[in-house]
């Protein structure tokens, strides 16, 4: 924030005009333009906004923009700089409650909006979180650590590795559960990679975020946080999970296995779904209800295997009809060592790609096939195309989700250059990333409009 009395965010024409009147950000002003007179405080301007307008906060709290070049006079009455601070209340300690560690990576679960500038301020210390969600103190003794502050699209190997190591450290220290705050866009990538990097955890590792930022009264952040902290503190599920809203209503969350979960809607609260299977459990503020029993149980030891191998030269290719071989060729030419293809149907690409795939085989590049239908298995024997491709060294990855196959291949190639060993790692399920069978309720996408579906959604708060 502009504590230095500058012209923060202003550039070009607007900056020139403000300078000519000596009207810095936070000045309490009366501005006369060609359209009239306006009274308020000059706010910093978003750096992505145009260089032609000056933003003024009116007494009523509303913001307006005034065209800089039409400003005729500015009377400065004083300065009113905003100091935005999240109140901290000491998080109460109760020796009877389990210790939970919250690791922060960024994202909206733990942030506040600076109402003057629109900037997002992280709310993260236990005190800040207690000030916002006091209910957390009824569940656990909370400790927090900010690992980094990045949007989820900027998460990458460096952050994956640091997070996995932090989890290992906390387990060794003896926490009863770990919660990881994460942006939702790539939460399922991180959930998958942590499922491989952190193995045989004795405690729950719960990833959580929010679809509506916590500066909104209708935010899902507080409830998601309560659900995830409860899961970390109390559940007997010692796996890497994603904990997000089940329905769009404020009723319960779902605990998804880290390797089978995917963000399926760009904005819905209930965006995360388990694909090709059912979630591990439901969680509400009152209780955790397992939906299946084949999960790894909580243990009292502090043993955990951390394997942070990661080969960065791996890519994911979303096949489309008429794709040219140069797409694959360019990956080969750029030194990629692994490619995951999201193929059509049972796992197909067109014939013109064959020579490029052949090159991959010759260069020792690992190529794995997944399906862009997301639901269902790769099956490369049904059609000739599939068999041809296997001849070219393309390996079917069963029902592994494309993004999961991508991070697993990076993890496998990070451990060895031996393609046979890579194949063994890829095809051996480690954390439920491939399953032996798809239950009949593993594929349920209700079709709106059908009478029985309409009846269902009219009676159940979804």
């Amino acid at each position, binding site marked *: 924030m502009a504590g230095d009395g500058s012209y923060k965010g202003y550039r070009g024409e607007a900056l020139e005009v403000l300078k000519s009147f000596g009207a810095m950000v936070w000045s309490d002003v009366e501005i006369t333009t060609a359209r009239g007179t306006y009274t308020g405080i000059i706010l910093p301007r978003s750096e992505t906004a145009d260089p032609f*307008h000056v933003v003024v906060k009116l*007494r009523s*709290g509303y913001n307006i923009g005034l*065209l800089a070049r039409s400003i005729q006079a500015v009377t400065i009455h004083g300065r009113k700089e905003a100091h935005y601070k999240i109140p901290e209340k000491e998080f109460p300690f109760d020796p009877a409650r389990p210790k939970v560690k919250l690791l922060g990576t960024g994202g909206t679960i733990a942030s506040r909006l600076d109402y003057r500038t629109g900037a997002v301020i992280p709310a993260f210390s236990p005190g800040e979180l207690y000030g916002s969600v006091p209910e957390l103190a009824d569940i656990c003794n909370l400790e927090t650590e900010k690992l980094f502050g990045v949007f989820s699209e900027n998460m990458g190997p460096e952050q994956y590795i640091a997070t996995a190591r932090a989890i290992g450290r906390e387990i060794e220290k003896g926490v009863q559960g770990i919660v990881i705050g994460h942006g939702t866009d790539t939460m399922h990538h991180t959930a998958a990679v942590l499922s491989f990097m952190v193995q045989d955890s004795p405690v729950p590792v719960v990833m959580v975020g929010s679809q509506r930022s916590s500066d909104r009264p209708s935010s899902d952040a507080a409830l998601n946080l309560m659900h995830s902290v409860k899961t970390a503190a109390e559940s007997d599920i010692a796996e890497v999970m994603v904990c997000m809203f089940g329905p769009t209503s404020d009723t319960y969350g779902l605990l998804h296995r880290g390797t089978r979960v995917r963000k399926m809607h760009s904005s819905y609260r209930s965006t995360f779904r388990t694909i090709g299977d059912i979630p591990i459990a439901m969680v509400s503020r009152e209780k955790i209800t397992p939906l299946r029993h084949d999960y790894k149980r909580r243990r009292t030891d502090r043993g955990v295997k951390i394997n942070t191998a990661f080969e960065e030269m791996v890519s994911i290719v979303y096949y489309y009809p008429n794709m040219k071989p140069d797409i694959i060729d360019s990956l080969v030419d750029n030194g990629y060592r692994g490619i995951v293809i999201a193929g059509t149907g049972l796992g197909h690409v067109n014939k013109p790609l064959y020579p490029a795939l052949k090159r991959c085989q010759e260069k020792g590049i690992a190529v794995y096939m997944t399906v862009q239908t997301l639901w269902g298995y790769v099956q490369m024997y049904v059609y000739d195309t599939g068999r041809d491709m296997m001849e070219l060294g393309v390996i079917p990855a069963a029902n592994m989700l494309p993004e999961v196959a991508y991070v697993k291949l990076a993890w496998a190639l990070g451990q060895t250059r031996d393609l046979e060993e890579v194949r063994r790692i890829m095809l051996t399920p480690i954390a439920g990333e491939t399953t032996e069978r798809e239950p009949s309720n593993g594929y349920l996408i209700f079709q709106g409009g059908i009478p029985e579906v309409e009846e269902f959604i009219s009676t159940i708060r979804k």
Partner: protein
Amino acid sequence: MSEFLFKPFAEMTAADYEAVGFRSGLEIHQQVLTEKKLFCRCPAGRYSREYDAEILRHMRPTLSELGEYDGTALMEFKTKKEIIYRINRETVCTYEMDDTPPFMMDETALDIALGIAMLYDLNLVDELHIARKQYLDGSIPTGFQRTTIVGVNGWIPYKDRRVSIVQLGLEEDACREVSDVGHRRTYITDRLGMPLIETVTGPDMRTPDEVAEVAQICRRLVRSTGRVRTGIGAAREDVNVSVTGGTRVEIKGVPRIPRIPLLVHHEAMRQWNLLRLRAELHRRGVTPEAFRSETEDVTRVLQKTSYLPVRDALEAGETANCVVLRGFRDLLNWQTQTNTRFSREISDRVRVVACLTRLPNIVHSDSSSETLSSAEWLAVRKAVRASKDDTLVVVWGGAEDVRTGSQEIAIRAKEATVGIPSETRQALRDGTNGFERILPGPDRMYPDTDLPPIKVTEERLARIREKLPVPIWTHEAWYAELGVPADVVQPLAVSAHAGLFEELVREWKIDPVAASVALVQFMKRIRRKGLDAGRLDERTLRGIFTLLRDKKITREGVYALMEKAARGEALPAAGALPPAPSGEEIEAEVGRSLGRIGGMSLHNPEKKGHVLMGLVMPALRGRVEGAAVAPRVAAAAAGRI
């Protein structure tokens, strides 16, 4: 403060309101006429109580700039309401459900808002910034209303002065409440997201009648654009009221302007009487510092009561508390509004904040009506160690709600020692008002990070200005000058045909009285007859006035042709019209009509002339001025022929 005492509404004078320092301003909410909603592409203006699905949400307060929770926010959080939204898939999409970010603002809505802002002579904004105004009552699923300021610092002429227009905003409408019982509030979402302008006046009105009059002016002004919605709920007024030493209190959602004066009067009265109550409390030594109250659980004491509301609750395993208000004896009976006592202020708070919605929800020892027996009051009094100077308030219900309710009783009582709490209050049918919620502070505005600012270009403004009607007050002054009948002036100013009228008078030199009566009163008469006034479009009206201008028909003939057109019949071509009747023809028609009257028995023989005229004129089908017929009719009626 002065010793002034409020009189009944009908007896209050402007001087009385001046004596209490009455001030009032308006926030007028008016839906604008668009096809779609403001931030999504759902249809606007389709109302239905039917729904396909429900969703459940809670609202949590977010922090203000100073790291404080807004008072309203905290109150709403205390209430711990479950909010249920009813969703009709025809009128609501995932945007209104708060599951999809906003789409760009509806351009038509913005044009209309800018146009109206020009009529108010507001200083327009160069770049619109969308803000989030927080509402934690659940009336908007996001918990905030998207809103933007279009212009500031305008005015309208009123009497011999100007009433200031502080600002005009464009915002999305909220849900309609279906029910609010206990901890569950239900909304229907059809109205949610419709574009709405909010016009805020300065606190410039000095009497309750002035408030209504200014509301009418604003209503007529926006209607003169022809681009706002009309009908029930399309326009709603919030009225701000204060008196000297009082606080700005907002009466929310008054649906009809004629209801404003009595509501406003009662609010001024309530504030005045609360200030007198404070003086009385201070006289007794009950100041904010000296205020004392204690709460005791009296469940066991009242276990055997015969007072049914309490007995039913306790038998159902609920609890009862008694709050003792030290030094308050008799003050819960202090009059606040007509037929309304201070105890109502407390009961309202308990109802809204503690969700104890079954009424009565409190009983108190100042009450003379039969509640607890005197023996029970005595037992309660003993249990809470109260003296005869104290007032006891008993509240019952679920344990947690009773705890919240007890706190609220003490909070509201203590506020009486301070003054008038900042509240929004709901308008009640009988003209009084009841507590709705704590008035939100200025700290509930946040910038909306979901939408970029919108530039308002000069080109856009020029395009809008071109189509703008002249402000109604300019029109009205001119009409009066032209001699347009007083009862026609205002309707004409907001009529869709105001432009046509101007053209007829200025360019066609048609008599202003004839033109205005035809465009307003004849139209009204046609509508009353149940005929299709929609057939009288501008082209048809021009056709009729052409005949009048060319003296093919008379002023009377205009109505006959309008009715004909409204029935869907073709208008005669100018040449095909029969010529004006001769003197003989008129005589003959008078004779014929007289014959018809002969067969009738008239209630009032003195009206014979009127009846006769009523028969003769239509028979001549407007080919002649009434003035030419009247003497003959008068003579005939008097029996002179």
